[in-house]
Structure formats: structure tokens, C-alpha cells
């Protein structure tokens, strides 16, 4: 009788039942779509962080250089001043190959790596050096100074007036690439942890003091390098050391890989940074310890910048952040608002239907039906409508998620361009907004960066540093479907409760007296 009565009643007021079901379906479909989109954005964010952060590394430790401490500024290796006898004569050949930290990451003592590795809840720690190799070749032209300072800027200082920047710079070829010094003993941490060897081999402990290198696959292709090739890496004395390429490594997209990887000890020696690193990679014993380990490191290494995934996540900008904000704020509240509206509508319509059936329920009470039985009947009808709404809503949710997958634009994620506090394995984030921070020595600027082709090139590199593109995929999981159907049934129960309450309050005499 119970299900028969429900089915017959819903058939009698089919139009109203469908109306209520569609209202619930819209709310539930929206909940599913927004939840799926939100999950997709979260997955994209996690993928981005994974790409930018690397596998196995929970925390990175770096240090921002203080103003004026940049040293190692790039220069031609001679002071440039008007009338100085130290200036090379016009016609002198320049061939400088320099390896340095570039001034965006300050040095940290290697002993910090050991201290951190011994801390509680630290599983492993490794040091790394993120360096830049720059080769300048050319011939010093004759200079025509119209008074004022030289056309070259030293570390941290800016030049003014003088010279003809564009013609001076045109006499030199500048070639740069990034170099990472890798702690071979802790290969599971650091810049190579996410790489895959596509040719040759990776480092072994026997390579610790050897002039061998791994080359990034993209860089190798651009520069026609392969296993067995030779690559010249500079040093702090502006000369070059030839390294043998023993392997080609591919890093995930957006990982900002270095171009060349060499053993850490060799890198320290070449860059004149013995016993120094500029990035420490740390793995916590478990994910719950990351915050406490980060806190301990901050205390143990004063002045350092300690970054974990949460910090990195907050630095990520781009459309992925906008999408996350949209899904979590507007999307979530819109779905909740529509769902509440659907529940209210269902409740009001159910109560109205009960009011129209007062005489019917009064008759049933006169026949000896308990109020509880009548309430269950009303709730059963409402839940049945809710289930129909839920099924339609799940369909709408799938359709909504499919539309999101099909028509959403690729999401981009970038790290803030002025972020210097944290490092990724690739190290390219050290580039500031326009050229080398604190560096730039040797380049005449005349206050117009636009006339300096070299500065423009580095600016471009800085703008694209840390950018990842992810395609949004909105997954509809079983959990989401179960929640959605649960919401539909809840909507039915709420509506039925309102209607049932109305029916339960009926006094049989009153109900029967409402005869036209």
C-alpha cells in the first residue's frame, strides 16, 4: 500500500513533482559541477606544486642577499672609468667565462646542511648551488665619452650618461646558461629528484670530484649536445673548464630545470664558494612534521628563508589561482544558494500539496490511520521526488563537468616574479624583474633598459620563469555522486518533514469539516 500510494499520488501531481525534482536536480547538478571543478583545480594546483617543487623535497632553505653584498657581480673583469689606464685598449679581445651565484641567492655555510640533517623529524637534507655561467666574447671598441661616468655599471650601481650603449654592446657576444651543483650523495633530494635520464647515465659517487656533467634535454637539443659532448663551464677567474657530458636528463614541464648539472664540490670550487651552498633541500620524517621542522630551521639558520609547499602555494599566481578562488568562493556559495532555494521550494510545494489533501488525510485518520503513518506517507512521496531529482542532478553534474573539461581554457600558474626567498630545483627563479639583481655590471644602460638587448633578454627569462600550464580536468568521483544523492534525499526529507508536520497537526474533525 505504501509504495502504491506514493506512485499513484506522484502520478496524479506529475507536473508538480517534476517541477520540484528539476529544482532539486539543478541544485545538485551545480553542486557536483562546482565540486568537480574545484577538485580539478586542486589537482592542477597539486600538479603545479609538484612540478615546481620537486619530488621528495618538503622544505627549501635559501637566503636573500643583503643590499650591497652582491659581490660576484658580473663584469668584464676590468674596471671601466674614464681615462683609467686599467681600461683595455680599443681592439683588445675579450673572452671571459664566469661561473657565479649571480647575486640573487646569498650563500649558506655547508655546515648548515649537516646541522639540519641532524634535527628531529628530518629524514634527509642536501645542499645545492644554483649558479649562472656567462661567457662574453668580443673586441673592445673605441669609446667616445662626452664627459660623465663610464658606460659600465659595477655591481649594484647604475651608470649615467656617457657613451653610446647600443654600439658598445653590439661588439660582444654574451652566452649564458644555468648550472646546478648537485649533492651526489643525496640524489633523492634536490634538482635532479624529478628528472628522468633519457640518454647516458646519472651521477655516481665516483663522479664527486670529476669534471662530468648532466645536461637538460631541452638545452642539449638547442645546443646540439649529446652524451660524450664537451661543455665549457666558467669559473670565478673568468676561465673555462671542459666538462664531459655523461647523461641527458628530462625534467617535468614547468620545473624550471637548470641547463647543466655538475657535482657540488666541483661547482663550489669553480665558483669560489668552497663550503658554501645557496639552497638546502630538506625532507621531513612525515608530512605532519613539516611545519615544526620549518620552524626549527628558521631558528637554527637566522636570516634564512624557509619555504614549504604551503608557502609556495600562496606564491603561485596566474589563472589557476583565479580559478581556485572562483571555484571555492563564488562557485561554492552559488551552489549552496541554489540548493537552499531548491529545498525551500520543495518544502513549500509539499506543504501546499498536503493542504490540498486535508480531507484525504482526515478520512485516513477517521479510518484509524496513525498520524505517524500519514507523515511517513508524505515523507515517502517527498523522498521519491528527491531521488528522482538526485538522479537527474547527477546527470546534470556529469554534463556540467564535461562542459568544464571541454571548454575551459588551460590554467597557468606562475611564481611571483619578485620572489627570491625560495628556490626550485631549477633555480631559474633567481632572476629578478629585469636583469641580474645587484649585478648588471659591465652593461651600459644610460638609464634606458630598452636600449640594452642583453638586459631585455634576461628580463624575458625572468618573466617566464616558474610558469606552468595545466589543463583543467574536473573529475566526478563516486564520493561526489554519493554526496549528491544524499543531498537529494535530504532535500526530500526536509520537504517531507514540513509537509508531514502539517499533516500530523490535522484534527480529523477539522479535516473532514473542510468539505466544500
Amino acid at each position, binding site marked *: *500500500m505504501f509504495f*502504491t*500510494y506514493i506512485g*499513484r*499520488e506522484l*502520478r*496524479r501531481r506529475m507536473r508538480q513533482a517534476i517541477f520540484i525534482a528539476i529544482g532539486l536536480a539543478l541544485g545538485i547538478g551545480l553542486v557536483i559541477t562546482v565540486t568537480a571543478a574545484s577538485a580539478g583545480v586542486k589537482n592542477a594546483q597539486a600538479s603545479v606544486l609538484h612540478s615546481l617543487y620537486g619530488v621528495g623535497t618538503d622544505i627549501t632553505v635559501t637566503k636573500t642577499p643583503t643590499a650591497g653584498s652582491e659581490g660576484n657581480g658580473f663584469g668584464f673583469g676590468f674596471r671601466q672609468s674614464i681615462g683609467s689606464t686599467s681600461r683595455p685598449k680599443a681592439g683588445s679581445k675579450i673572452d671571459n667565462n664566469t661561473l657565479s651565484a649571480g647575486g640573487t641567492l646569498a650563500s649558506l655555510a655547508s655546515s648548515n646542511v649537516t646541522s639540519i640533517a641532524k634535527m628531529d623529524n628530518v629524514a634527509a637534507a642536501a645542499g645545492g648551488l644554483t649558479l649562472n655561467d656567462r661567457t662574453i666574447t668580443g673586441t673592445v671598441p673605441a669609446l667616445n665619452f662626452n664627459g660623465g661616468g663610464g658606460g659600465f655599471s659595477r655591481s649594484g650601481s647604475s651608470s649615467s650618461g656617457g657613451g653610446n650603449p647600443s654600439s658598445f654592446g653590439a661588439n660582444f657576444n654574451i652566452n649564458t646558461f644555468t648550472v646546478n651543483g648537485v649533492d651526489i650523495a643525496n640524489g633523492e633530494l634536490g634538482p635532479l629528484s624529478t628528472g628522468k635520464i633519457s640518454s647516458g647515465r646519472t651521477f655516481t659517487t665516483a663522479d664527486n670530484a670529476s669534471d662530468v656533467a648532466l645536461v637538460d634535454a631541452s638545452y642539449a637539443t638547442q645546443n646540439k649536445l649529446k652524451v660524450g659532448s664537451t661543455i665549457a663551464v666558467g669559473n670565478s677567474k673568468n676561465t673555462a673548464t671542459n666538462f664531459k657530458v655523461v647523461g641527458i636528463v628530462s625534467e617535468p614541464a614547468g620545473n624550471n630545470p637548470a641547463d647543466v648539472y655538475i657535482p657540488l664540490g666541483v661547482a663550489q670550487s669553480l665558483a669560489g664558494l668552497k663550503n658554501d651552498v645557496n639552497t638546502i633541500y630538506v625532507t621531513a620524517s612525515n608530512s605532519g612534521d613539516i611545519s615544526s621542522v620549518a620552524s626549527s630551521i628558521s631558528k637554527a639558520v637566522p636570516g634564512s628563508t624557509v619555504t614549504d609547499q604551503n608557502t609556495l602555494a600562496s606564491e603561485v599566481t596566474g589563472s589557476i589561482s583565479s580559478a581556485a578562488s572562483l571555484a571555492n568562493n563564488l562557485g561554492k556559495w552559488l551552489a549552496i544558494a541554489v540548493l537552499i532555494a531548491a529545498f525551500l521550494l520543495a518544502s513549500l510545494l509539499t506543504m501546499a500539496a498536503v493542504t490540498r489533501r486535508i*480531507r*484525504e488525510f482526515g*478520512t*485516513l*485518520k*477517521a*479510518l*484509524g*490511520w*496513525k*498520524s505517524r*503513518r500519514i507523515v511517513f506517507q508524505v515523507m515517502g512521496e517527498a523522498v521519491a521526488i528527491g531521488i528522482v531529482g538526485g538522479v537527474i542532478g547527477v546527470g546534470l553534474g556529469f554534463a556540467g563537468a564535461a562542459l568544464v573539461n571541454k571548454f575551459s581554457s588551460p590554467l597557468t600558474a606562475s611564481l611571483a616574479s619578485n620572489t627570491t626567498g625560495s628556490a626550485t630545483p631549477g633555480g631559474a627563479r633567481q632572476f629578478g624583474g629585469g636583469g641580474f639583481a645587484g649585478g648588471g655590471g659591465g652593461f651600459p644602460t644610460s638609464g634606458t633598459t630598452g636600449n640594452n638587448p642583453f638586459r631585455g633578454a634576461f628580463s624575458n627569462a625572468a618573466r617566464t620563469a616558474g610558469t606552468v600550464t595545466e589543463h583543467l580536468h574536473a573529475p566526478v568521483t563516486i564520493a561526489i555522486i554519493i554526496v549528491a544523492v544524499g543531498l537529494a534525499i535530504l532535500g526530500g526529507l526536509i520537504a517531507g518533514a514540513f509537509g508531514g508536520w502539517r499533516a500530523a497537526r490535522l*484534527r*480529523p*474533525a477539522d479535516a*473532514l*469539516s473542510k*468539505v466544500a
Partner: protein
Amino acid sequence: MYKLTNVTKDYPKGRETVHALRGVDVEIPDGEWLAIQGPTGHGKSTLLQILGGLDRPTSGSVDFDGRDLARTREAQMTKVRADSIGFIFQTFNLIPTLSALENVETALVPLGVSGASRRARAAEALNSLGLGDRLRHLPSELSGGQQQRVAIARALVKEPKVLLADEPTGNLDEDTRDEIIGLLEKLWQDNGLTMVIVTHDSSIARRAQRLGTMRNGKLTVKQTV
């Protein structure tokens, strides 16, 4: 069966009070047929509702088979209605979405009768009233007389002690009215029912054993000839 003692029923109506029943005293023995007549609005239906436990008196006692319905809790009252009292209404009050068979079954649902047994008893009740070929019809597919017969079957399928009918022929034409009253009379005679019928129709009232007249909330009862 019934003993009403000084039963009153008052309804608030705005600032005033409507005295629907003013001290009704009546005894209705087992197996008696009592017809109640009177002008509209003088308390006939109110009295029927109190006899059926659908409403409580404002004061007085309503003894039904040793139980005072005026002081019986609602849950118990529901059980009394389910077990012992059959109702027939002027407008039939069939559930429009249920078939004739299912409408009769609704009277057996509160008794916990199993589905198969319910269907069997309902079918038998309808068959005995000549509706064996209308079991699957909805009320909208039945004539007025047929609908009232379904209502009678619903009222009697549970073999109640008392049958209360409020204007059972009020919505029927003359021929059908006679048919229904003849049917009720036969059922009363065959089953030994206690029957109370509210009616405007004197021809029906005369067929009862006793005739009660409600006027201004007071009941006077006399034997019919």
C-alpha cells in the same frame, strides 16, 4: 453501546463562542438504528464526530463500550476508530488515486492485515455489494452510487461494532438513494450493527428504529412507528 451524559461542545468563533452541543444525553443500545435529523448547523455532524471519536466534547462523558471517549488519549482513540467504528460520508471521501479495491484496503491497513489477506477481504466486501467487476476502477470511473457502495464496503470490511453515516445519500439521485438505504438496512439486519445515520431525508429517517432531532444543540429522541 453508547451512553452520552451531558455532552457539550463549544467552538470559539472570533470573540464569540458557538455552542454546538448543549448538554446532550442519549443512550444507544447495541444493534439499534438511530436516525438523527434537524436543521443545518444545529449540531448533527458534531454529534456524529463525537460518537466516532473524531472530536472531543468540551464537557460531559461519552461512554463507548465501557470506555469514555472524552478522556481517551489520541493514540487509543485512533485504535478504537480502526477496530470498532465504520464511517460513511456524504461526499464518499474515497482516495482519488487508489482503485476501489485499494480504497477498501485502506480500512484494513491500521489493523496490520497482510497484503494478500487484505486484498482478499476487500474483494469479498466489494463483491457482496455487487462491485466485483469494478475492483480496479478509480473513483472517477465510478458512478455516485458505486462510489458510495465502495465507501460502505470500506466501512464494513473490518466488521465494526458501529456504523456512523453522515448524509450517506445526500449526493445521490432518488433511485440510487433508495438503493443505498436499502443496502444499509439489509446490512444492519444481517450483521446486527449499531447504526447512527444523520440525514435530512425523512423517508430514510422513518426506516430507523428511533429518530433523534437536533435543534440548537439539544437532542430529543423518540421511537419511530
